[in-house]
């Protein structure tokens, strides 16, 4: 008797299931047609990293070239080049430690960018090899001045490996096509 009751209950559950899918059948779609529409819920999306602009100048990176992100990256996918103020770009492979201004106390110096005159270096390029990146976020965490953040570039597509060698400085300086940037600019 109990078994019969359970069987009837089971049969009823089949009808309940049919009712659920039957109702869903007539509800509107909840997906979007990607090439024509894009989703707008990317607030928490962690794309590749991007450089944050300085508070007073949107074209200058906040980066102080302290090398923390390069050193902490477990995948070794960040590389940056710089030169000391007053020198020619790429003149000497300067030791980053020697270039640190004394006022800039890394790593946890109040998360503020130092005044520009204290930075005695100029950033030449900031490159991310995204094909190696595992999005662990250690660079974002370790940056003393919050100069790196995750982008919301969820539509990154490329046909060659070189498409994922991203020049983040060029991306910062060219915000118009920053969201569509798939290709890299040739190195300056």
């Amino acid at each position, binding site marked *: 008797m109990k078994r019969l009751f359970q069987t009837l209950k089971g049969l009823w559950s*089949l009808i309940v*299931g049919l009712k*659920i*899918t039957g109702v*869903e*059948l007539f509800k509107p779609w909840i997906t979007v047609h990607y090439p024509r529409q894009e989703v707008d819920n990317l607030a928490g999306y962690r794309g590749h990293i991007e450089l944050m602009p300085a508070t007073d100048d949107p074209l200058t990176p906040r980066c102080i070239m302290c090398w923390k992100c390069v050193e902490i990256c477990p995948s070794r996918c960040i590389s940056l080049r710089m030169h000391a103020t007053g020198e020619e770009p790429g003149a000497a492979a300067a030791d980053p430690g020697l270039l640190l201004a004394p006022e800039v106390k890394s790593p946890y110096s109040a998360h503020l960018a130092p005044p520009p005159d204290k930075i005695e270096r100029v950033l030449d390029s900031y490159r991310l090899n995204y094909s190696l990146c595992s999005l662990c976020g250690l660079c974002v965490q370790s940056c003393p001045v919050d100069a790196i953040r995750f982008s919301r570039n969820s539509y990154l597509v490329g046909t060659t490996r070189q498409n994922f060698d991203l020049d983040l400085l060029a991306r910062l300086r060219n915000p118009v096509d920053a969201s569509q940037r798939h290709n890299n600019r040739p190195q300056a």
Partner: protein
Amino acid sequence: MIAELTALLSHPLGQMIAALAAVMAFLAVNGLVLLYAERKVAGFIQRRPGPYEVGPHGLLQPFADAGKLISKQLVTPMGADRLLFWLAPLLSLAPVVVCFLPIPFSPVLTGMNINLGLLLILAFSGLNTLALCLAGWGSNNKYSLLGAARAVAQSVAYEIPLLLAVLAVAFQVGSLDLSAIAAPQTKGLLSWNVFVQPLAFVIFFISAVAETNRAPFDLPEAESELTAGFHTEYSGMGFGIFFLAEYSYMVVVCAVATALFLGGWDGPVFPGPWWFLGKVFALVFALMWFRWTFPRVRFDQLLNVCWKWLIPLGLANLAATAFLVKWVR
């Protein structure tokens, strides 16, 4: 010219050939339509658009799929039995054409009037099991073989309740001719057999889902366990023919269910054949609805449902029908 054609069609052989040609054309169109319909139903149940990019609302998608399948190279796996491997898809599809002949779309629109139509359909649809068995055996692949073993066990088991359900209706009418079974049901909705024999209808439909290897009884091709089951090694048109056969068998069982239980061509306003087709495709839709609702059963559950529930219930239903028929007469 017209007189000659009429004479040709009035000859039984000419009529049969014309019916076979019509059935083949119908099967091809039916395959394309159901391919599209299934993907749209799946999409809508999962609240996405389904095929959308090829043609307006994806209407040309089945043609693209068919074109791809037809143009692919026919590959025979190493160590496979060439003859059995390529015989299997043909053996799967060919009997379906015969199965359509005795189906009464209307009293006039019937491919072949024979008084054993039901038996003919049951006999020829049984060949599908053999086709799946050959496909599994000829592929030289363990997944295929396991799929084929499942297909045979499942088909053999579910043929019994299917026959018991059909037999109850045949007892009641006293005929195996589908037209003769459908004809008494045309006296309004309540004369339909589904209201006279509700249990037989339920048993028939569940067994039909299992016989056509549709979800939730699609164990012969359970992709999460057996890659693709019996058709693992088939690509291109080998797979395409199995696919076409599956959709054709869906229409066959739904047409038999319509003729046996749902009043055949009975319905107001529109001509009979349209009603028949409408009922058939409503049942096909139900099969798709089942597929996207119920999870696949385990193999022991599948056989338990058959041996412990459907067969005893079918036997009881048959005994009660036989008793009533004898007693009422």
